[in-house]
């Protein structure tokens, strides 16, 4: 090789500490023989030999993590899950990982021989949001290094449990402590792994909001109207809404009236809270809210529809995406956009609510369709009677990439006392006009 390249090789070997001079020389020689310009060849070599040092992050910074990163932590739980992917059975491993700054869920798409309690350092992993909750994903390119016990890593995720008001509990919380009044409670028999099990479900509320809860452990002495104080409840997600899960890790006790930080009676008798659509949009999911606004658009897909008898999906021309040709079940619905000036949400009304709000039964709608020989006629007629109208909707909200949707449990035309509202507004006017 020509001596005139010596200074470049010198320069490269300085930049690439630990890489042999001859290795660099051979590589450069090879590239140059293939007519690669010198500058480009040098860059290629730098890229090839530079150690791929992944940047190491802590769990608290997980949301700001680079595409690929390294992390050190302790596995506090791991579970093997069977999944069927394109007809083939595969296993994945999911669980929780903690470091000194926080806890995070993980999913490993390969068997990395992970065990509860292991201290590991993982390289080339990435973060993904699953149900708006950050998760560490171990993929094919990930490397797991097992480390000896490190006392600086906590053993119990409970030290990260935060105490929050109900409204503040969100999908990124894993364990949470709070207090509230049980406003609904019922028992349900289910069969888990062939065994009869009773689970408790209900709603818990404080002066800021309410959330559904379920318990796999008996809650003796707890009934509607009791205030409880609980620690370390799991936060699960269902359709984007956090729900509280009481397990053997959770502890709770009844809260005597004089220690309640809120008025029990007020919460028990409280009507659902009306909130602005703007504030619904700020949250990933809200349980049992009421919004009012104007219907400003009725979306395609409203009107008469047919559903698959097996999976309830909306179908077209009697063909279901999952079940092929089926005999469709007739149904009617309204998909609309409700806007109150602070924001806009999608609302979904089922048949019963659609019939009330649209003012026609499904049979009447079918007659409209028959007379005009078109299903679109119902959609057009819905637009004419719905757009512009005031509507109040009560239900759960959830956010997806397409926007925020409220699936209505109740919908009604708000009865407004025009005059009293008018007088209120007149009072708010400045006096000097």
């Amino acid at each position: 090789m020509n001596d005139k390249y010596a200074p470049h090789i010198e320069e490269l070997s300085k930049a690439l500490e630990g890489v042999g001079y001859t290795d660099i020389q051979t590589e450069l020689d090879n590239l140059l023989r293939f007519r690669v310009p010198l500058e480009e060849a040098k860059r290629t070599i730098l890229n090839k030999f530079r150690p791929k040092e992944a940047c190491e992050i802590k769990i608290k910074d997980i949301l700001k993590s680079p595409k690929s990163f390294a992390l050190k932590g302790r596995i506090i739980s791991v579970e093997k899950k069977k999944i069927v992917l394109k007809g083939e059975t595969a296993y994945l491993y999911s669980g929780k990982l903690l470091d000194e700054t926080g806890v995070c869920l993980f999913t490993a798409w390969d068997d990395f021989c992970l065990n509860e309690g292991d201290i590991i350092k993982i390289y080339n992993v990435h973060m993904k949001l699953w149900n708006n909750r950050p998760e560490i994903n171990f993929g094919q390119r990930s490397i797991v290094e097992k480390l000896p016990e490190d006392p600086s890593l906590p053993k119990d995720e409970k030290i990260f449990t935060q105490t929050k008001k109900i409204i503040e509990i969100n999908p990124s919380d894993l364990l949470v402590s709070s207090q509230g009044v049980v406003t609904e409670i019922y028992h349900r028999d289910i069969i888990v792994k062939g065994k009869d099990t009773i689970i408790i479900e209900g709603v818990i509320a404080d002066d800021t909001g309410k959330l559904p809860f379920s318990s796999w452990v008996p809650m003796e002495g707890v009934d509607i109207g009791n205030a409880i104080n609980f620690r370390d409840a799991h936060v699960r997600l269902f359709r984007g809404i956090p729900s509280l899960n009481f397990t053997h890790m959770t502890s709770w006790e009844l809260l005597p009236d004089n220690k309640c930080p809120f008025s029990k009676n007020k919460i028990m008798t409280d009507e659902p809270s009306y909130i602005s659509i703007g504030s619904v949009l700020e949250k990933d999911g809200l349980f049992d809210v009421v919004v009012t606004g104007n219907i400003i658009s009725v979306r395609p897909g409203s009107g008469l529809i047919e559903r698959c008898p097996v999976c309830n999906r909306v179908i077209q021309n009697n063909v279901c995406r999952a079940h092929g040709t089926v005999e469709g079940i007739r149904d009617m619905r309204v998909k609309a956009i409700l806007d109150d000036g602070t924001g806009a949400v999608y609302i979904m009304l089922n048949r019963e609510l659609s019939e009330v709000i649209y003012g026609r039964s499904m049979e009447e709608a079918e007659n409209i369709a028959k007379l005009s020989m078109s299903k679109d006629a119902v959609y057009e007629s819905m637009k004419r009677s719905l757009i512009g109208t005031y509507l109040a909707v009560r239900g759960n909200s959830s956010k997806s990439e397409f926007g925020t949707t409220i699936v209505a449990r109740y919908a009604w035309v708000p009865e407004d006392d025009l005059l009293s509202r008018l007088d209120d507004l007149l009072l708010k006017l400045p006096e000097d006009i």
Partner: protein
Amino acid sequence: MAGYTREAARRIFAQEFRESNLTFKDGNDQYSPQYLFTPTGAKVNRMFIVGTLIEKEDIGSESEYWRGKVSDPTGSFFIYAGQYQPEAAQVLSECDTPEFVAIVGKPSTYTTPEGEILTSIRPESMYIVDGETRDLWVLDTARVTLERLKVLPTSHPDALRAKEHYRTEAKHYASMVLKALRSLQEDIDVMDD
């Protein structure tokens, strides 16, 4: 989740809409939304109005192009609907005047050769509604206008921008709201008699 959020439909009285003349884009992307900025500091990309359609006229030469005039207690809005606003054009061609209508649309501006800026609405949808919906709209619009007037003396960026561009006098718009509410009061009294 990041990405697309639907622009909220703002409620604006006709007088304030007519007195608006500032438009701007948020960002430099070709898909960045365009806003009309009003004297009380509302950023309007989409608006919702309910009023009385008092005039309509097909001003198109070859294809239909409808102009409508919709009045509220403070003045009137102009709306223009052609082949790209089929829903609204159809309603305009079929309905009678006067009629209560609800309109969702985008604000648009036109600069006359004399340099005057005229505002109008390009409707996305337009439907006939009842009188009660119209009354509720007046109340809602009065409420949100008052809310904006409350922010105006503060150093909120929209308030600063409004004061800088329009030298907005809160009193002027407070009396507009008063006018709207008084006329609504009279309407209701008439109905009750």
